[in-house]
């Protein structure tokens, strides 16, 4: 499917999504509440069939926290990007997608570890790299660590 058609198709599947300007992949901003149902419909639909989540990353944009989903269809070969934003820095919660793409299980644990975004309904929401009793989330821009990070 060519990018323009794909954009239209995705927008009909997820009417709440907003399109974002991007160079490489068509990018959509999905409201956090709609993420799970949107993900299911993107995967289940025959002509989109996004069955491969090839990257899931968390980003701290300072104003808000963001989770970025890079999706590819192994059947059609097209790819899109979903972004989910949350402005709550104290207790951010986003629905998990690890029941849809199992690879998300580890990626979500990593995002929780590094950015403190919790994923609702995740089967094993623990830190993955750092200690259980580590204080703070290192990839946040306001993370301070005088001992280990040398500010130049």
């Amino acid at each position: 499917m060519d990018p323009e058609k794909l954009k239209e198709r995705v927008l009909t599947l997820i009417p709440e999504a907003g399109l974002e300007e991007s160079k490489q992949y068509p990018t959509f901003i999905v409201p956090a509440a709609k993420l799970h149902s949107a993900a299911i419909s993107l995967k289940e639909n025959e002509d989109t069939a996004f069955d491969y989540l090839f990257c899931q990353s968390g980003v701290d944009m300072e104003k808000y926290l963001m989770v970025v989903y890079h999706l590819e269809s192994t059947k059609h070969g097209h790819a899109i990007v979903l972004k989910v934003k949350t402005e709550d820095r104290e207790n951010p919660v986003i629905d998990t997608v690890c029941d849809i793409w199992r690879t998300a299980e580890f990626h979500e644990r990593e995002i929780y570890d590094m950015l403190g975004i919790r994923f609702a309904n995740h089967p094993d929401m623990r830190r993955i790299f750092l200690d259980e009793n580590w204080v703070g989330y290192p990839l946040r821009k306001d993370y301070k660590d005088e001992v280990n990070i040398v500010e130049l």
Partner: protein
Amino acid sequence: MKEVIHTPVPLVEEEEYHINMGPQHPSTHGVLRLVVTLQGEIVKSLKPHCGYIHRGIEKMCEKDTYPQIIHLTDRIDYLSAHINNHAVCLLVEKALEIEVPERVKYVRTIMDELARIQSHQLWWASFGMDLGGLTCFFYGLRDREKILDIWEETTGARFLQSYYTPGGLLWDIHPNFQKDVKAFIKYFRKKIRDYDNILSGNVIFRERSRNIGLMSKEDAISWGVTGPSGRGSGWSCDVRKHHPYALYDKVDFKEILYTEGDTLARYLVRMDEMRESMNIIEQLIDNIPEGDFTAKMKAVIKLPAGEYYQRVESARGDLGLYCISDGNKTPYRMKFRTPSFSNLSVLDHISRDLKIADLVAIGGSLDLVIPDIDR
């Protein structure tokens, strides 16, 4: 901020017990820790504990310039250092819309394939050792040494080369490079037959690996198991074929696919990939064009604001670099999607209800590199 979530440790059923495989254990090839729940010798479930070699490379990237980041990527998956360097270079070149000279593309492709061969050699060596065939280890390392020698001559380093720079190469190839690579291919074509004789054709090895760790194509896609491990399940996931970079759209090579999805299939994919990589190198090595070894680059590299994603096929699978730039000389956020991280996540699923010896075989067949998991 302090909020610790303790998920209850899975209670041990009757006649079950935990063992810790790792962080110091011969079969985890590094500091990976697997908490395995066993019933007798049967693996009931396992939980990987990562992070023993977590160095926060993603955080470090936010403070480093792009040429500096190349040196960090070596350390992610040290066995495909060249390929990781390549990913950063391609990302910067794509963002700045720089066309690199043909010569650079040739050298990079050859180096990448050499990296793939040596990575698979080391994997073969350690996989043989996991299964108790200690001789394999020395055969594999003996042949890998030849590639390291070639690299040492051209790049000055045997292991962590950082030979690529955005726009080209650090310096030109050594005058002996073509001769040495051709000699190596001739040598290794003969030696790879030894590999088949000592391990692939062995009855015990076949019985140990066949129908062990079955992973369907759907599982592979859902868990994001890429690279040779995914292709052993029949998933055509070779980035070199689907999103070609460097010269991969020009050279003629097969994507190795096996549909069995067991440990033996993953083994055979890698064995065939070594041969296929030699084919790729043979097509290129005589035709390296004359020319510059680097494109003209500005002294300070600043990526235009925006988002970039670059995928390459490392020896372990689909390596992705997700970069958000705000126009500065350092990235705003750099995310590495490393293949071993996703490949590890499937280990629990495919090793359940098998013996502990099978767990070692499956772990070996996934070809995990621990720094690639932990970053």
